[in-house]
């Protein structure tokens, strides 16, 4: 068992021998040593070249955030671990101005670890590492061990050169040394990030219902515009065809609830939610409606109450700046709960059903619990009331319980769930422990607390107050006329699912088969 540096008295590493020396790179192949490893970069001259290299490494124009290569600039003169952790958080892209608001307290080091882990950190560069005392070097060695990464200590001054060796030795971390001029060769600067293509507004699309949408497009758009729109339409319809082939049996045997749950998850995470623009979303929806109708499913859309640009409401909520604004906060649970609530467009009901093991390590997928307990004691009472259930079913046809189906998150949001997963594991949680824990270890947090967290984060960090996050009773309509407002992904888009008699669909030839193309 490796010693925990936090439990050791200060200066505990000073009396140990140096750690084993390692070749930083294979002389033949140039391949870098695998982590964990501490590498002293001898920058005795404190050169301008190194300064420029580090500046370019950290330049936001040349890197994605989060990135696997992180440059941390320790606060000069600070000797405590918390300050180093805050420097690490700033380095991974957290807003240093709001770190105080997050009130991380004793969890700050674990938070830093979690976000570095979620970013898939392979190289941690520490500027002016010679100014760190030996205990902070030991902390960095500990971080290298947990992340299994390379820690590059830019040694630009006097400092005790044997200190990193000693710091690494206690934890069994190998150490090496290179001269500063080798660093750009071993760790080349990343290529400039490609400039995103500016969004180009497409033609104004017809507002026709799906039954006549394609014909209206043919009539209203130019040949060139129509060719582009029709390709999108046919592609989306084919994808919907393929999905229906897979799920036709579920429609017939599973009933409206199971089928609707599958359909919502597919539309939200795969087919409609990730659309890049409102136009794409509208064409995709219309094609999907047309493809589903001939398979006996009516996906009804009533855009009247969706404001001036209803098609834009069809896309997923986690888009544009929103995931990045969420990422700027340091508390993993706050960001993850808010992110999931926004993605599902509902309060954090049923979030207590998830356990740590339900999250994939990269945060891309949150699996559905096989034996969800639902924790009825944690839920608002009205959720299970017949009138509330019937109100939801009348509005959309699907209950949309968060834990009923796996959730596939959009790429910019995945790092948030990955960070929370890493945080919980770092706290010592096992696979079967709650994903969102209460103040008492092993216990679930309550719905009220999660909702408060999501509400606070959405209001303060995102400057948004989604209607489904209102406290109840709510002056502004978390309840309407004494009745709770229904919420969900379908509700927010005014979509509803209706199953038509299956015999009709069976009697109808598929259009492609009808024309001999299938």
């Amino acid at each position: 068992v490796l010693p925990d540096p936090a439990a050791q008295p200060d200066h505990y590493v000073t009396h140990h021998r140096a750690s084993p020396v390692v070749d930083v790179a294979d002389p033949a192949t140039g391949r870098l040593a695998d982590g964990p490893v501490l590498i002293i970069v001898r920058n005795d001259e404190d050169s301008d070249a190194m300064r420029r290299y580090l500046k370019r490494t950290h330049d936001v124009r040349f890197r994605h955030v989060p990135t696997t290569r992180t440059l941390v600039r320790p606060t000069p003169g600070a000797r405590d671990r918390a300050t180093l952790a805050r420097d690490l958080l700033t380095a991974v892209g957290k807003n240093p101005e709001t770190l105080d608001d997050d009130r991380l307290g004793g969890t700050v080091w674990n938070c830093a670890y979690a976000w570095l882990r979620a970013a898939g950190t392979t190289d941690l560069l520490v500027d002016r590492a010679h100014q760190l005392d030996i205990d902070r070097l030991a902390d960095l060695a500990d971080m290298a061990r947990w992340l299994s990464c390379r820690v590059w200590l830019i040694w630009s001054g006097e400092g005790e050169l044997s200190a990193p060796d000693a710091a690494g030795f206690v934890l069994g971390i190998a150490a090496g040394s290179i001269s500063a001029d080798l660093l750009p060769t071993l760790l080349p600067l990343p290529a400039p990030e490609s400039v995103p293509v500016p969004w180009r507004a497409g033609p104004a699309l017809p507002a026709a219902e799906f039954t006549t949408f394609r014909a209206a497009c043919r009539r209203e758009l130019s040949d060139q515009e129509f060719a582009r729109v029709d390709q999108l339409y046919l592609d989306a319809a084919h994808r919907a065809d393929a999905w229906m082939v897979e799920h036709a049996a579920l429609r017939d045997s599973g009933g409206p609830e199971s089928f609707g749950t599958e359909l919502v998850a597919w539309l939200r995470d795969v087919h409609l939610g990730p659309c890049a623009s409102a136009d794409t979303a509208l064409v995709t929806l219309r094609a999907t409606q047309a493809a589903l109708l001939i398979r006996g499913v009516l996906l009804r859309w009533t855009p009247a109450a969706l404001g001036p640009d209803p098609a834009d409401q069809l896309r997923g909520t986690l888009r544009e700046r929103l995931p990045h604004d969420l990422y700027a906060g340091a508390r993993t649970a706050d960001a993850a709960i808010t992110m999931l609530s926004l993605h599902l467009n509902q309060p954090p009901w049923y979030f207590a059903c998830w356990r740590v093991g339900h999250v994939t390590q990269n945060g891309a997928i949150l699996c559905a619990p096989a034996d969800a307990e639902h924790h009825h004691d944690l839920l608002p009472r009205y959720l299970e009331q017949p009138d509330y259930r019937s109100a939801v079913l009348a509005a959309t046809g699907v209950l949309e319980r968060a834990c009923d189906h796996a959730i596939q998150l959009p790429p910019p949001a995945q790092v948030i769930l990955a960070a929370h997963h890493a945080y919980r594991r770092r706290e010592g949680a096992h696979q079967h422990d709650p994903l969102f824990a209460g103040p008492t270890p092993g216990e679930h947090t309550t719905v009220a607390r999660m909702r408060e967290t999501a509400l606070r984060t959405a209001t303060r960090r995102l400057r948004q107050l989604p209607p489904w996050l209102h406290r109840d009773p709510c002056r502004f309509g978390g309840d309407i006329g004494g009745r709770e407002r229904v919420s969900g992904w379908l509700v927010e888009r005014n979509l509803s699912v209706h199953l038509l008699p299956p015999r009709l669909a069976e009697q109808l030839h598929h259009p492609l088969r009808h024309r001999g193309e299938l």
Partner: protein
Amino acid sequence: VTDEASTSLLIQRLRAAGMSLWELGDLIGVHPHHLFPDNEDLAALPVAALVDLASRLDLHPADLVPDLDPDTSPATQDKTLSAAGTVENATSVSTDAEVVLTALAYAVDPLTNDDLAAALDWPLARVATAIEHAHRHPEQAGPVRLRRTAPDTYTVTARLDRLTADQAQRLARTRLYRHALTADQAQLLLAALALNNDPGAYRSRRTALPDAEPGLKRAGLIQDDNGAGKPRVVNDVRYSLRYHNQPPGD
């Protein structure tokens, strides 16, 4: 809700429009929380939403957010006059005619002179003079026209001399196309596609869903001229559902 001068205008107009904050919020696409008159969030609304809000309530945006441009706001220019005061002080027949036309547009249903006199709290003679003036000066009504639907009963409808027949037809079609299918209509449309060779089966479906077929016909999605149970699904629909590769003609 407070009755302060700065907030009452929004509430007055909201009540006049017969809407709740929730309905207004839905129309504009913002949460009603942001529309609450004593809430500073009104100033934080996107410009498009603010302009839409002002337009829906026939206000200038500066009436909602005074910082925008107080000097050009119609409300601030006329703020010394109440709504009633405006009417009382405006004595010209032309203004009276404008008020009558607005009242008729507001009421939607036709109104008699008596109704107008009672609603506007005017003498009957004043209403008659205003109606007479509106008849003699049709240009005053802009895109609508004063129509007599019964003796001494009036309404306003769109003028008929500005749109071509094709434009009017396409407008009607757009309105119908936008109407989302109900589940019953979808079922009958599916039946019309699937049971084209089995009129008996189609007729039994039609009987089970009595309201569906008229809706589909009004929307122009099916045609069944002789009522024999063999409706024809129009080419626009067949093309959109991919049963045709050839686009329908105009």
